């Protein structure tokens, strides 16, 4: 039993560091890419989202989560993508 444990420990010693460092690298790549994108975002996006929400809310019943704004940079130009989820007609006629 004791030898088995020692053997397992030796194997784990070689196996584990590689696994955890690999997952660390993956996590970092994802989060740093995301954060670099955030850093380049212009300051007005959040305020813009709030204003658009207010305007749409005057006509339709929507919540903060239903409005999403993203800025995408492509070669030569930036694209502002606006996603608005409107309530279905059935929900509307219920009101």
């Amino acid at each position: 039993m004791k030898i088995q444990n020692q053997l397992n420990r030796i194997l784990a010693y070689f196996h584990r560091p590689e696994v955890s460092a690999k997952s660390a690298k993956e996590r970092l790549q994802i989060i740093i890419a995301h954060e670099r994108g955030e850093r380049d975002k212009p300051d007005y996006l959040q305020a813009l989202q709030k204003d658009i929400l207010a305007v749409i809310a005057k006509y339709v019943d929507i919540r903060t989560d239903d409005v999403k704004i993203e800025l995408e940079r492509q070669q030569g130009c930036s694209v502002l993508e606006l996603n608005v989820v409107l309530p279905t007609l059935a929900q509307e006629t219920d009101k």
Partner: protein
Amino acid sequence: MTKIIVITSGKGGVGKTTTSASFAVGIANRGHKTVVIDFDIGLRNLDLIMGCERRVVYDFVNVIRGEANLKQALIRDKHVKDLCILAASQTRDKDALTMEGVEKVLKELSESFDYIICDSPAGIERGAQLAMYFADMAIVVTNPEVSSVRDSDRILGLLASKTRRAEEGKEAVSEHLLLTRYSPDRVSRGDMLSLADVNDILAIPVLGVIPESQAVLRGSNAGIPVIMDAESDAGQAYADAVARLLGEEVPHRFMDEKVHWLKRMFRFREKARHENTKSA
């Protein structure tokens, strides 16, 4: 009554965030509703150590500024129920954290949580001051190393004077020492300050001693607080410390020199040879 605990140190890199994460998990696992807040301004670490970095939408400053409510900003931990995380802001504005804003958030959190853990940034500037200001209890994380001990002493001075409890003449913030990155081998060789040496200078009750462990790095790589690695010495030491915090009496482990079986064999041979030469 909600208990506000600050994890502070003065010195950077001693294990505050590691400790905050492990204590948050440990306390929540005992069934107490817990929230852990990253008080850093501009740099965000707690979310990485807790493994929730991809789910941060709103942060502490967003809540203070009214740009989001607490419900939107709090992140539910995936591994432990009853545990929530409030991430730090990455704003460049150091004045973003205000005393009134922090007080308001803590008050609101007190309505739904039993324990609020404040992960303080290093230093004694605004983030660190605000993290300790409203605390009921402080865990002072210290390495057995000269600069860390001196900085911890400085922090103890501030805890006794620059907190709400001190300023209002209430019962003092209770102070507890958590000695981290302890190596019993180096201590026995005389290369490292012992627990007794550190406490000779700091003179506060010892909450726990966490041994230097490779499990800590593995934990932060994976985004899993080390207390969840129940096989590791550091993980177990954190579990002991949490138990002590909650009032249990637990003897200190991992404080003795690890003598490898080969070394022990050689020591025996050395001793035998020595006996022979003596008698010869």
